[in-house]
């Protein structure tokens, strides 16, 4: 099994995709975090009228929003990377070689899933580092606290990395489910940029809580990455939350379940099929 996993790593690191996607992820997430830090500075000046107390309070609220920025918005890149590690094999017909090297198909599939964990860790760590570097660095420059001395902040950082690991697994599972490379990219983008955000708007617009929406993938991912800070944003005037997020452990389980269920279906629908 170690040989199969090693082969998966080698496949991953011998094309340009991995570092091109890593650069995009890091750049995108760093920019998002920096943008948020600037927005924060603007908000302090405009709304708090420079009140030092207000700024400090807002400062506290903000680390949990700046640092997981990559995990909450840049997660599509690890998803695409995971999906392409599967769809690329079908696109370039390298799947033939993969199956010749390991004809027991469940083993080659398991190897892909296991290999995605350290790959996700690389993307997760780099993305989170970009958020801390750009977001936290800018906060420091603007004279606020970056919060790195607090244990809570480190928990947020850890969750961000973990979320991106989970998203990579979801990506691999999705690639197995929808093996056509172009189609899978289109569906990932459409769902994450359009479908789920629109669905999540419904309770905000209608004022009716819809608990099942918290089981959708992005909501589950945000529950792992952002946790309570996000739920607080959805509080109505009465203190009742309209956006209900799962707890982080449940969110993790839900996200992992998406990945594994996709993979299981993909195994029967695509992976076990004849290759010709």
């Amino acid at each position: 099994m170690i040989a199969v996993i090693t082969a998966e790593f080698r496949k991953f690191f011998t094309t340009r995709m991995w570092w091109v996607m890593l650069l995009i992820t890091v750049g995108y997430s760093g920019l998002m975090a920096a943008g948020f830090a600037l927005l924060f500075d603007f908000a302090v000046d405009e709304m708090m009228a420079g009140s030092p107390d207000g700024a400090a309070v807002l400062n506290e609220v903000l680390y949990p929003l700046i640092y997981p920025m990559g995990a909450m918005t840049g997660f599509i890149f690890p998803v695409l990377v995971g999906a392409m590690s599967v769809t690329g094999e079908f696109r370039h017909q390298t799947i033939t070689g993969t199956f010749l090297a390991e004809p027991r198909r469940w083993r080659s599939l398991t190897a892909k899933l296991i290999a995605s964990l350290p790959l996700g860790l690389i993307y997760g760590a780099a993305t989170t580092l970009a958020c801390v570097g750009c977001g936290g660095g800018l906060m420091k420059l603007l004279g606020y606290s970056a919060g790195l001395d607090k244990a809570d902040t480190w928990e947020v950082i850890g969750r961000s990395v973990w979320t991106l690991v989970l998203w990579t697994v979801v990506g691999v599972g999705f690639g197995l489910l929808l093996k056509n490379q172009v189609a899978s990219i289109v569906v990932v983008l459409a769902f994450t940029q359009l479908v789920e955000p629109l669905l999540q708007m419904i309770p905000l617009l209608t004022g009716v809580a819809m608990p099942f929406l918290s089981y959708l993938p992005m909501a589950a991912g945000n529950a792992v990455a952002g946790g309570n800070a996000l739920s607080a944003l959805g509080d109505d005037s009465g203190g009742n939350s309209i956006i209900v997020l799962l707890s982080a452990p449940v969110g993790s389980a839900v996200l992992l379940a998406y990945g594994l269920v996709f993979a299981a279906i993909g195994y029967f629908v695509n992976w076990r099929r004849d290759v010709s």
Partner: protein
Amino acid sequence: MIQVSHLSKKFGTLTAVDDLTFEVQPGRVTGFLGPNGAGKTTTLRIGLDLVRADSGTVTFDGRHYHQLPKPMSHVGAALEATGFHPGRSARDHLLTMAPQAGVPDQRCDEVLELVGLKEAARKRVKGFSMGMRGRLSLAATLLADPQILLLDEPTNGLDPEGIAWMRGLLRHLADEGRTILISSHLLSEVQQTVDDVIIIGHGRLLHASPLADLARLTRQRTWVTPIDPKALLDLARQMNWTLERTPDPSTAQIVGPTPAEIGHACFAAGVELRQLAPQSQGLEDTFLALTHGQEAIR
């Protein structure tokens, strides 16, 4: 040894492989021949567990492909000159296979040199010609030094020099006792390479024998130009020869007897001939005759 036993496979209503049974012996190069669409690639893919058979089995030294503990070090297979990521270099392509082949990385450089790709080792496959891709496929099959080689149309895209080189290499590998099966839709392309032939058409076995025995199936044809056509016709009827017309009205073709037999009979009957010439018939004609009408119209 490779054993194919009562193998059948349908794609929808199309029968690609039809109760196919044959054996491939070690120490020999065996040609797996048949016109386009005959089912050669399908047979190989079934053997490699890439495609599921409807019935029948393919075994390598008694075991199914997926039962081999280290399949790549037992069977080396090159299915076609595709299956490369265009952005990966030749060397990297082999490096991705090395862990499962169970070979050290330097073995990749060795096989690249063996197939003549040393210079191009670090170039991306995107820029490779057909012949270079074929060589890289071959390098991949040789990586783990397997006892059995399955090569699907290995001469595709090779120049004459490359074909001669491959011929020598396969001969050398067979002499080491390996089992080698190469497919082709042209007998002439592998005629100088193979010891045995297996010919299929419409997924069915048409002929399996050493190459030399195939030559014996050839029906002798002889050009004859008589002074008196009528006398020849009478003699042909008497001798039960098959006479065929030729574009030249004064010349006929006799199918069956050797020129010596014809010459003797004509001399004995007093039929004077202006010309008596054997038609040199290549094995390719025999092959075409065997597979005649087998070309798939699909």
